[in-house]
């Protein structure tokens, strides 16, 4: 199955609460491409002393199938006596945000998303950085090279016409 390798660093979370109070510790994050079962997910370690602002700073590597449109990021509270694992906040990260954004997908990009809890209520923010590594054997059509333009002249502006379409997107547009 054609896929890409996604390196996603889960950096930190902000204002994550349970029943109105910041969660002191015990949160971890799972990442998986959508359409995949829970077994395909990857976890971070548990944050111990974030106090509402958990920090993980952990890099996870996920296989991202070509047809996946979202990566699901879930912040969970770890199981302890009498409690099972509970999903405290979820975010669906559109793959297009880092594949078809301003920067090429192999560039390290910093992204942040709103988390929503099981009832759909807003519950904090998750901060991530992502970078796509191409699977070996896949050829990159349209290797990005600096577009040869006369120095200092940008073909932008004008009435609504943007001519600078990033080349690196062309290959993937053809695939989708």
């Amino acid at each position, binding site marked *: 199955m054609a896929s890409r390798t996604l390196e996603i660093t889960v950096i930190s979370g902000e204002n994550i609460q349970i029943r109105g109070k910041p969660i002191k510790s015990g949160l971890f994050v799972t990442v998986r491409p959508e359409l995949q079962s829970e077994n395909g997910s990857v976890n971070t370690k548990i944050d111990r002393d974030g106090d509402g602002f958990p920090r993980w700073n952990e890099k996870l590597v996920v296989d991202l199938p070509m047809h996946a449109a979202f990566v699901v990021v879930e912040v969970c509270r770890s199981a302890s006596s009498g409690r099972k694992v509970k999903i405290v906040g979820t975010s669906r990260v559109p793959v297009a945000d880092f594949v078809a954004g*301003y920067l090429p997908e192999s560039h390290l990009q910093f992204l942040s998303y709103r988390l929503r809890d099981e009832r759909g209520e807003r519950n904090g923010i998750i901060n991530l950085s992502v970078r796509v590594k191409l699977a070996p054997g896949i050829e990159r059509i349209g290797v990005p090279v600096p577009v040869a333009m006369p120095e200092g002249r940008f073909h932008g502006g004008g009435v609504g016409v943007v001519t600078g379409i990033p080349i690196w997107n062309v290959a993937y547009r053809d695939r989708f």
Partner: protein
Amino acid sequence: MGNCFSNEAAGQSSVGGTAFSQSTTSNVAIDCFLLSRGYRGLYSQIELSFSASNLRDRDIFSKSDPMLVVYTKGKDGTLEELHRTEVVQNSLNPKWIHKLNITYQFEVVQTLVFFVYDVDTQYQNLGVKMLKLDEQQYLGEATCVLSEIVTQSDRSLILDLVYREESTSSSLPRLCGKLTVHAEECVSSKTTMEIILRCSDLEHKDLFSRIDPFLVISKFVESKGSIPVCKTEVIKNDSNPTWKPIFLNMQQVGSKDSPLIIECFNFNSNGKHELIGKVRKTLVELEKLSFSGEGDSLFLLPSAGHDYHNKALKSQLFVDKFSESVQQTFLDYLAGGYEMNFMVAVDFTASNGNPRLRDSLHFIDPSGRPNSYQQAIIEVGEVLQFYDSDKRFPAWGFGARPIDGPVSHCFNLNGSSHYCEVEGTQGILMAYTSALHNVSLAGPTLFGPVINNAALIASQSLANGARKYFVLLIITDGVVTDLQETKDALVKASDLPLSILIVGVGGADFKEMEVLDADKGERLESSTERVASRDIVQFVPFRDVQANTLLINGGVSMVQALLAEIPHQFLTYVRSRDVQPNSRSSYQTA
């Protein structure tokens, strides 16, 4: 905002630098107020050293004995003497030893004027300061701006010395030698301390109400009392609080032995924070506390009528972490070749008023007095131009109908349909004036297209590996019409090397615009629930520049306070992405 920079990744807000703001975020108005009281944001101490070559020979039997005098030139042209070097005997190629310590401020155009004199032998026994300059022989002069020196890769600037003759004012001044000025950043600017502070048993007069403590660290200066340097966040309802790490730059503090006053306040939403206790420590003493793990008692000045000794409280201060690190500074990145690229977008919506009428914001005064748009362009362009090597600035207008076309929300100010750049600040002003004649004002006020265009330029530059940081200045008279589209554009652009300064001119109520500036509210969120990874927008309402300088002592204008934030935003960007001053900005292929 604020001076305690956090080099942590996006999302962790940096600790504000204001002493008594009512919330834990700072804002531009308070920063201005503090600036006028001696509080400094991001600045660096630089040491300038001087040498000259090929000086004129004035003495008959021996070579000149040159001395250098350095002045700073104010906006009105007045010269103020800063420094005199020593006299070097008998040399036409002197290397002076006495160096000048000067504070580099990004947001100010610091013009320096140099005069070289030949000091007559009869005066050479006097101290240099006693010399009357009009009794010495003038050898030549030169002038430059401090930013020109620090943006050179070797931090040295070679200037031609010119000799101005008063009698023949029509002749060109003669060249007479060269002056080399070299800048070194003082090492103290690079050292940063990370400190985690904790308090125990904080007491409150009213035993039953809760304590919301925060700390303010001030530097004690003999003549001026205490100047706030840093403050922590407010922790709610905790009498044994541990605050988030504080980052102190050595030059804010002075030295490791400088006395610091650490005060613990109880936050009160009406602004009258109650002092719980304070303690006086140097950095060395804090370091010792962190090793020993012991605490030190806080003190409280007693109210009148009691004994005059400071009452030692049960509350104690602990230092949980004290670590020192050397960081690359803004000047390091400049010396490594980083450039600031200025871009400008001007609002041409009809709400500005008919440009031919005197009360229009776009009225070009025949007397030459600049209108608000021109003032903002000059004030920002004047500072930023030195940081751009080719001085070509993209300039756009929005909200107008060019002569033969529909309303455009991003048209090139120079009238071209191929390229958007103009040459220098003068180029922007000329393009602006001619655009006024060639377009008809329309509307609505949309920022989206302009921001997207600027973001595209920044992203192309980044992908090409260029070491450039972009600053977009948007000057507008009105509130943006489609706030959500603007937020979407800003969120998408938040991961790029881009800062956006929005200056609001005219008398409109800009309250709604403040929501774009994350300092005054929450992080921006797009319609797809993506959140901005950095706060890239600063907004300030621009009153007439005369009124601005009256309002704030020391001639610090609101726009300068905006500009002062840029080095901080730049450093947050490069540090969180681990970009080193000398490396190519990474464009990594898989």
